[in-house]
């Protein structure tokens, strides 16, 4: 089955790009292609000028899934260390990096906790910390906050922007939420229904740094209604 067709999408260095589109339009597929989890049936995907597999082996990007996918038998610290452990980094260095990443997502003090002891939002923070330990130039995020409540999502969004600013990584972000996409992104890519094609792109020029208050400004409403209109047209 064809999920995507003629999608051409470039993410600039350090750019925050969100993808929205009707359900089943292949948003996640697009992300999975970039992450080398799926192989394209035709056409090509380039990540930093390489095939996704090469970029993956060079550890140039990290993926954050919808489900935090933490290993229940590992503590937060051990979960966050996992990618470095797999990359065979020495214990001392990987511990330092993991602790740093945990601090960056605001989970300091929970290093020794097991995933079952954390709330949904905290688990997703741990998953983000895990993705950050590789210090990737690109973060692929597949609806990472879809399972948390609205207020937690707001807070996580705000923190994600802070993390993004601090790390300078580019982020390709798939979401269902128009408001979330507007608040976070430099650019929103609207996909059509299956097979997904790029319907339009919106360059969100809200000033940065963006606090949560910006969500309630007329400019943000304006961008949200534009994005909603584009999404409605794309769904037709």
């Amino acid at each position: 089955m064809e999920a995507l067709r003629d999608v051409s999408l470039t993410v600039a260095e350090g750019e925050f790009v969100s993808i929205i589109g009707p359900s089943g339009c292949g948003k996640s597929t697009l992300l999975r292609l970039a992450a080398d989890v799926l192989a394209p049936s035709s056409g090509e995907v380039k990540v930093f000028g390489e095939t996704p597999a090469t970029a993956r082996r060079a550890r140039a990007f990290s993926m954050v899934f919808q489900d935090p996918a933490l290993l229940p038998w590992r503590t937060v610290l051990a979960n966050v260390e996992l990618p470095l452990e797999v990359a065979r980094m020495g214990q001392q260095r990987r511990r330092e990096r993991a602790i740093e990443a945990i601090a960056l997502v605001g989970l300091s003090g929970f290093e020794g906790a097991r995933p079952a002891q954390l709330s949904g939002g905290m688990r997703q923070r741990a998953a983000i910390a895990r993705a950050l330990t590789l210090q990737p130039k690109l973060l692929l995020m597949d609806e990472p906050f879809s399972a948390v409540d609205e207020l937690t999502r707001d807070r996580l969004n705000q923190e994600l922007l802070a993390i993004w600013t601090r790390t300078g990584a580019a982020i390709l972000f798939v979401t269902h939420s128009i408001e979330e996409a507007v608040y976070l992104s430099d650019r929103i890519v609207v996909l059509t229904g299956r097979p997904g094609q790029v319907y339009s792109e919106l360059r969100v020029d809200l000033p940065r740094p963006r606090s949560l208050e910006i969500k309630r400004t007329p400019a943000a409403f304006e961008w949200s209604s534009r994005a909603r209109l584009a999404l409605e047209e794309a769904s037709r």
Partner: protein
Amino acid sequence: MRIPGARVWLRWLGGLGGLAAFFLAWEIAVAVLQVPLYVLPAPSSIWRQVLRDWPLLLRHLQPTAIEAFGGFVLGNGGAIILAAAFVHWPPVQRALFPLAIGLRTIPLVAITPLLLVWLGYGYAPKIVIAALISFFPTLVNMTRGFAAMDQQSLELMHTISASTWQTFVKVRWPASLPYLFSALKIAATSCVLGAVVAEWIGSDRGLGYLVVAATFEFAIARLWATIAVTSLLALLAFLVVAAAERFFVPWRDDAGI
């Protein structure tokens, strides 16, 4: 809200209460109905016989324990390795799973004499029987256990470029532990029974031999004492595995008996 301490306590108390009620009913029934000894002795007289025969029972307990343990290690080890092969190379599973089922359908009582011919009169045939008996449940459980890893964990390991071996050691193996312990709990008791059955068919020592000897001599009380000790050995094996599960699978909430 969970109060683990209290719950464990209650569970143990419940289990012991059930056992106590069972033995009490047995004791009373034998006394009231005046059941003759050769039909069914009372638990108290079985226990007295266990104490009386203790040196003898202990001497025969040892080989049975060795055989059961050897079979446990061999059967479960083989099953775990084969299950790992199944998960990583599906053609191996397609080729060997029918064979494994075939192995399961062989009546062990029938092949024990053959094993005696092939492997001699010592520990070896008993260990093989004990291994065969525990092999299949563990194979089935671990084939499921190794495949139980969720899709997202698999994708995660892929995106961080983990090797197949790393994925196995860091995710598949720990994720399969609850399945492993379910299987090991079955195996712990069946290994003992396998060893006893093998001894029963051909041996001059072990609890299985003692069963044959006691029956032959019409020593009914000793027969029951041997049965009691065999059960206790199997129960002990089970409890050791259950304790190991609590230790090795602490993240599993219901890791109890």
